[in-house]
């Protein structure tokens, strides 16, 4: 008979052995000789934490009570590993690339680093896992009790559970929080779990072999026993089987501890590839002897024995103390490995999603100023471990064990399975949004709570008994175990169907109805497209971060050595001479990912954000925005150019139109003027020719006078037509100049003679200075003379002085100026420009001209390379003709 002290001693020895294994593995990994620690077989064995004490002991109990139904618990994960291998691979890759620290981190990270979701999943995980931990404590206590009954005098069960909890807390704190980086592999822990996996398999198989060959006497005899037992006649409930299988598959993916070993502790795809076939094999071996043990146990043990403990009691019944002890260690291993990993997983979640965000908020300004964050993170994680185990212990001691715990495994499975829609949706559907995930989780959680978790405490414990009779407040369709009036289903199945289907519907509907933030979309893309892309986390734009600040922060979280190594490595990679790398977006991204490994993605993002300057937009986002902006700018620049072009064209058109309109008005005015100028002499000619034709009552004097009027007017008409043609020729540039050398005085002489030849009685005195007129010109002397004639004639016609005098002044400089100044009243200022226009006549007097003289003169002078202008301020009318001087000629 094993006494309790021996049992305790062996247990402690076993635990010390595990400490040793963990310590050894940890040290090997630190020394870089950890290659074998990453062996796929270790990974595969670590997955065995799926088989907790609940499976180790409970499978036999379940087989004894419900036949082969226990197989579903093994079939679910096997199906996932074999059939959904690619889902796992995707999860594992996302976990590696995104440095996911927990399932809460996965959900939070996927949905835009939402801490609300992180908190939600954490709470769900804690609620779902705490009873499970309690169950492990209970199993250890129960197994100890088996020995307690066998030997007189023992320990109190509560204290057993307490000390187990304390021991596990110590182990977990030591090996679970050695590294701050939660994403780093816990090689020690994993190794210890792998060892425990072997121990529990060996124990169960040893008992199985003893039962088959030691008690039954062989395989065929055992099969006969099974056939003879009630077990063979158990009917398979198809719906419940499918439900349980699905549930265990979902739990395999969603259980925090499974996520921990499968995703967080995963090193490479190879590990997963082996696990895909090896773990189902392990599960098969684990389940191989369940039925024989159950059947034999039912046979050989007295009725009423707890079938959950057959694994222990059957060997004890046959006096196989050593075997019983091995079996005890197997159960103990199952319980402890589960609790350790669950505590690590939960503490990471609690610490990263609840404690750290609160601490960060309370110490918002301290991150970059003071305080050792590394210390805080470690402390918070250790306290979380203690808290999780305390919760488990409290739950155990308060629930008092018993019936409530026996079903709690499946209840917990259903609870954590609520994460499934958000998780699978998140990694396969880019349209999944934060709101969708929140809605799904909330609905699933509430339905689970109401239909399964709270009823699991028994009617009347929390939910009033009346609810189970008539539904809450008499509302029948809200009956906790018959929602919407669908009754008669197994309560577990009922809860699974309703919670998960409502969860999924809420998730999809809310996802479709809501719009994801840029960060969500980006993370969604990275999660969904993990296989194709490099899948880095979204990075920082070049912020105002100082490398020193980042260094200070990184040291607090990663520890001085690691942080300095990281910074130095990055600085070298950047080709920097200093030990600090430039805070490039790339570096910030690497840093954030490193930090995420320790404190979770959302927290790391927040911390880097505090230093960089609150940027929460990714470079990709910025690039996309910049791209769009650039496109829009380009587009608007094009538009602007086009619009400028258009307005330029419009302006040109408007100018052209104005010009045309002006020309048209000018043309009309010109035609009107010509018409007037032509019709006026014509009128006289017609009138007097009619008078002459009619001939009655005309004196000979009149006759002669009228004839000469007709003659004069005809000449006036001719001159007008000549002028018009002249002007037209000049304006069109068709005039051919007859250039030749000539003396200015000769030209003036000729002009004076011509202008005064047709003289009236009014007289015009012309003052000239002949000495200054000895200037040689190379010009068209005929045309120049025409200009002078016009100017002299104008003075003769328009000068209003009684004694009219015209002075012709010649000034020779760079050019030659010839001024014509009379002693009249001059031209009014406002008319001085107009007089050069066609038909411009400012004088009241009719002087026989059509008003084309100055217009023609200007055309001629311009052709000759000179200019004509009015000279204001000379008293009388004054015109200046400027002519170019030929140098060669000027020298003569």
């Amino acid at each position, binding site marked *: 008979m094993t006494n309790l002290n021996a049992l305790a001693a062996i247990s402690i020895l076993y635990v010390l052995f595990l400490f040793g294994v963990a310590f050894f593995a940890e040290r090997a990994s630190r020394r870089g000789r950890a290659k074998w620690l990453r062996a796929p077989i270790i990974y595969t064995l670590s997955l065995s934490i799926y088989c907790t004490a609940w499976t180790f002991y409970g499978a036999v109990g379940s087989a004894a009570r419900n036949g082969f139904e226990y197989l579903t618990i093994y079939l679910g994960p096997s199906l996932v590993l074999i059939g959904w291998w690619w889902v796992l691979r995707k999860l594992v890759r996302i976990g590696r690339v995104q440095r996911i620290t927990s399932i809460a981190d996965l959900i939070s990270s996927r949905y835009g680093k939402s801490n609300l979701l992180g908190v939600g999943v954490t709470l769900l995980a804690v609620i779902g896992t705490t009873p499970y931990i309690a169950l492990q404590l209970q199993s250890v206590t129960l197994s100890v009790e088996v020995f307690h009954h066998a030997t007189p005098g023992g320990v109190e069960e509560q204290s057993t559970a307490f000390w187990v909890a304390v021991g596990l807390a110590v182990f977990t704190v030591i090996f679970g929080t050695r590294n701050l980086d939660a994403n780093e592999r816990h090689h020690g822990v994993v190794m210890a779990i792998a060892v425990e996996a072997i121990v529990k398999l060996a124990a169960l198989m040893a008992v199985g072999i003893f039962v088959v060959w030691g008690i039954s006497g062989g395989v065929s005899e055992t099969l006969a026993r099974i056939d003879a037992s009630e077990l063979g006649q158990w009917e398979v409930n198809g719906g419940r089987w499918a439900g349980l299988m699905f549930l265990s598959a979902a739990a395999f993916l969603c259980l925090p501890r499974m996520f921990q070993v499968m995703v967080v502790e995963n090193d490479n795809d190879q590990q997963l590839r082996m696990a895909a076939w090896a773990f189902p094999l392990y599960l098969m071996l684990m389940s191989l002897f369940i039925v024989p043990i159950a059947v034999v146990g039912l046979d050989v043990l007295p009725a009423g024995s707890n079938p959950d403990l057959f694994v222990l009691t059957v060997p004890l019944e046959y006096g196989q103390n050593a075997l019983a002890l091995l079996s005890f260690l197997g159960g103990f291993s199952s319980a402890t490995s589960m609790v350790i990993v669950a505590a690590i997983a939960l503490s990471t979640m609690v610490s990263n999603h609840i404690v750290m965000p609160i601490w960060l908020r309370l110490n918002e300004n301290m991150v970059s100023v003071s305080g050792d964050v590394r210390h805080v993170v470690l402390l918070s994680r250790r306290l979380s471990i203690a808290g999780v185990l305390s919760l488990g212990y409290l739950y155990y001691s308060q629930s008092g064990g018993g019936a409530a715990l026996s079903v709690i495994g499946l209840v917990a499975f259903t609870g954590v399975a609520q994460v499934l829609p958000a998780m699978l949706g998140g990694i396969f559907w880019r349209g999944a949004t934060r709101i969708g995930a929140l809605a799904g989780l909330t609905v699933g959680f509430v339905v689970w709570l109401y239909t399964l978790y709270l009823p699991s405490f028994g009617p009347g414990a929390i939910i009033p008994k009346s609810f189970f009779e008539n539904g809450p407040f008499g509302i029948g369709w809200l009956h906790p175990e018959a929602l919407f009036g669908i009754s008669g289903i197994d309560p577990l199945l009922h809860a699974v169907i309703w919670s998960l289907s409502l969860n999924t519907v809420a998730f999809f509907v809310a996802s479709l109805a809501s719009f994801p933030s840029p960060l969500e979309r980006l993370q969604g893309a990275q999660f969904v497209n993990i296989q194709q892309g490099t899948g880095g986390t979204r990075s920082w734009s070049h912020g105002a971060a100082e490398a020193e600040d980042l260094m200070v922060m990184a040291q607090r979280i990663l520890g001085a050595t690691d942080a300095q190594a990281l910074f130095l490595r990055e600085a070298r990679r950047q080709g920097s001479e200093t030990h600090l790398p430039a805070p490039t977006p790339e570096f910030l991204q690497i840093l954030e990912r490193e930090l995420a490994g320790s404190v979770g993605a959302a927290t790391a993002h927040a911390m880097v954000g505090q230093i960089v300057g609150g940027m929460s937009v990714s470079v990709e986002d910025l690039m996309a925005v910049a791209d769009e902006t650039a496109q829009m700018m380009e587009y608007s620049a094009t538009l602007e150019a086009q619009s400028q072009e258009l307005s330029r064209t419009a302006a040109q058109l408007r100018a052209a139109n104005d010009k045309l309109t002006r020309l048209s008005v000018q043309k009309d005015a010109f035609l009107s003027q010509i018409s007037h100028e032509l*019709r006026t002499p014509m*009128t*006289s*000619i017609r*009138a007097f020719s009619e008078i002459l034709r009619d001939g009655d009552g005309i004196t000979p004097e009149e006759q002669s006078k009228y004839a000469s009027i007709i003659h004069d*007017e005809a000449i006036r008409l001719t001159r007008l037509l000549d002028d018009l043609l002249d002007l037209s020729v000049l304006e069109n540039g068709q005039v051919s100049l007859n250039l030749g050398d000539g003396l200015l005085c000769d030209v003036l002489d000729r002009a004076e003679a011509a202008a005064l030849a047709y003289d009236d009685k009014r007289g015009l005195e012309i003052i000239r200075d002949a000495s200054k007129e000895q200037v040689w010109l190379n010009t068209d002397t005929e045309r120049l003379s025409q200009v002078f004639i016009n100017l002299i004639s104008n003075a003769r016609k328009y000068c209003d002085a009684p004694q009219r005098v015209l002075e012709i002044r010649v000034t020779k400089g760079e050019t030659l100026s010839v001024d014509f100044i009379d002693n009249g009243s001059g031209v009014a200022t406002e008319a001085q420009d107009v007089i050069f226009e066609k038909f411009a006549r400012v004088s009241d007097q009719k002087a026989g001209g059509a008003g084309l003289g100055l217009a023609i003169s200007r055309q001629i002078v311009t052709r000759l390379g000179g200019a004509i202008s009015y000279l204001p301020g000379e008293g009388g009318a004054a015109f200046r003709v400027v002519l170019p001087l030929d140098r060669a000629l000027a020298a003569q």
Partner: protein
Amino acid sequence: MAGHVLVIEDEPNIIEAIKFILSREGWNVATHSNGEDAVDVVRAKSPDVLILDVMLPGRSGYDILRELRGDAATENLPVLMLTARGQSKDREMAERAGASRFMTKPFSNAEVLEAVRALAPV
């Protein structure tokens, strides 16, 4: 016929031609060649018929006519307008200004005579 005709026209030869034609038929013809004081001259002479040129030095014929039409004394004075600009808009402007007749230069003597006869009050 002893009607009084006032001719306001700046072209001396045309004044002489009109004066000759009308005088020969027994009209008393007064002439004036400036636009500026034309209205005063009209009031002073109060002719039976006014022959008014459009393009006058100092003031346009239209302007003079408009003022005459605004005055009760000359409101109904028969006015024959002469213009050397033969465009339709000139005719329109003349009508709007209140011309009784409109004639484009060059005119036939018979036309002028006939117009004055028609316009003169019986």
